[in-house]
């Protein structure tokens, strides 16, 4: 940066701040000024008359411009300078007399956040963008930054759409007699802070694979309850295994103990063995297994006290809900008519 540039206030990002940084802020750090600036920067030269500058601003509907001497950036002339010139009634004076020579510039390789800091700290309306060698290569306004950020956000959105599109074709593109996708999640006992992470990830995966929102929601709820059960009630945590097939979703949740003493009792709404501390967190309503049975089409709970528990859940997908178009892969299911699209 040129001399005379006020040092932007350094922003120290603590871990806590970093956690709450939004996607837009993240983009402001990621995006380079070169990606958002206007490249066809209009400029004026030092010996141009202020009257001509006025005319140029009016024609181009701009309110400021860099001033060049040869190919060297020497100043900025803005509406404010023009007003001073009009006040002095000196429209014949050269630009060099009225331009602002305190230059605040940014480099094209800087991140957009640097420019945002300068806009906030200096109140300038535009920043000349210079290359490594100091030559003017563009101009940057807040409007350019807004447009650049919006463009980047749109790209983000499209990337997610493409991801969804690709994933939803997974089952169509792979030929086999029976194709399935298996997702596994290891759940730690007592890990409340990550509670719900596996179920959220599974729900997202199902949506990306093209599951209907209702199916994704029902699976999400059932798996959440099972996930929390592993966190709250097991000795060593457990494993969630989700097998996704075009026509059905099978969820297996296993752990190595302590096991359930009386399964009928455990299935009774309101029955819970959760401790008082767990209940204070809002768990242990005794509704988990009941919720699961409402959300899935089939549920089988097996447990040997002292050894462990296995919960198997299944969702059958109606023809309109199936993943991809796999008439061949539906043939082994006895529960649902084979899909035919």
């Amino acid at each position, binding site marked *: 940066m040129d001399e005379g540039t006020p040092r932007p206030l350094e922003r120290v990002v603590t871990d806590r701040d970093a956690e709450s940084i939004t996607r837009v802020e993240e983009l402001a750090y990621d995006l380079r000024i070169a990606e958002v600036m206007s490249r066809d920067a209009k400029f004026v030269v030092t010996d141009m008359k202020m009257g001509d500058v006025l005319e140029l601003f009016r024609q181009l509907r701009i309110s400021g411009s860099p001033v060049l001497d040869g190919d060297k950036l020497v100043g900025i002339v803005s509406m404010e300078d023009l007003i001073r010139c009009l006040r002095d009634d000196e429209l014949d004076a050269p630009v060099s007399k009225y331009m602002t020579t305190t230059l605040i510039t940014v480099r094209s390789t800087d991140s957009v956040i640097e420019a945002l800091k300068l806009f906030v700290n200096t109140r300038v309306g535009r920043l000349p963008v210079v290359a490594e060698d100091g030559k003017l290569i563009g101009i940057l306004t807040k409007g350019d930054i807004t447009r650049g950020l919006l463009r980047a956000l749109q790209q983000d959105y499209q990337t997610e759409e493409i991801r969804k599109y690709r994933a939803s074709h997974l089952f169509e593109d792979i030929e086999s007699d029976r194709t399935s996708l298996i997702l596994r999640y290891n759940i730690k006992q007592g890990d409340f802070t990550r509670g719900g992470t596996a179920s959220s990830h599974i729900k997202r995966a199902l949506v990306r694979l093209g599951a209907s929102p209702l199916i994704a*929601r029902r699976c999400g*709820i059932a798996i*959440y309850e099972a996930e929390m059960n592993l966190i709250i009630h097991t000795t060593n945590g457990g494993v969630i295994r989700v097998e996704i097939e075009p026509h059905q979703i099978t969820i297996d949740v296993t752990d190595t103990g302590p096991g359930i003493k009386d399964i009928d009792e455990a299935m009774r709404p309101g029955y819970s063995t959760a401790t008082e501390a767990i209940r204070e*967190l*809002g768990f242990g309503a005794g509704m988990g297994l009941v919720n699961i049975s409402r959300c899935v089409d089939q549920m089988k709970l097996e447990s040997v006290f002292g050894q462990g528990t296995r919960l198997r859940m299944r969702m059958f997908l109606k023809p309109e809900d199936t993943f991809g178009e796999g008439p061949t892969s539906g043939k082994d299911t006895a529960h649902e008519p084979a899909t035919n699209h």
Partner: protein
Amino acid sequence: MNLQQIIDALNLTILTEKKDFSLIEPASGYTSDLLSCVMAGAAKQGIWVTLQSHGNIVAVAALLDLCAIIITEDAKPDAATISKANEEGIIMLATSEKSFSVCGQLWSLGLRGG
């Protein structure tokens, strides 16, 4: 009735990122502090009134596609919970009032159970 009107009427503190709340129309309301009951009872796009403030409420709200959580009686979620809510696009609002009174006000604004 949109969320901005609710925020104004109930004088709620916004804990998560600001956005154009006037574009969000909550479909219904639900209250409970038992997460499994919420799982069973709260409808999509609803507002959930609770005094729970730990990280798991975000997972519950995200799985249910709820639009906002109103945390009552000045319970304060920690920074990790708030950033998780921002990540999942869940709006968290807070008030010093009790759940009962919040529900009463939401009801008189026209919001009903889902």
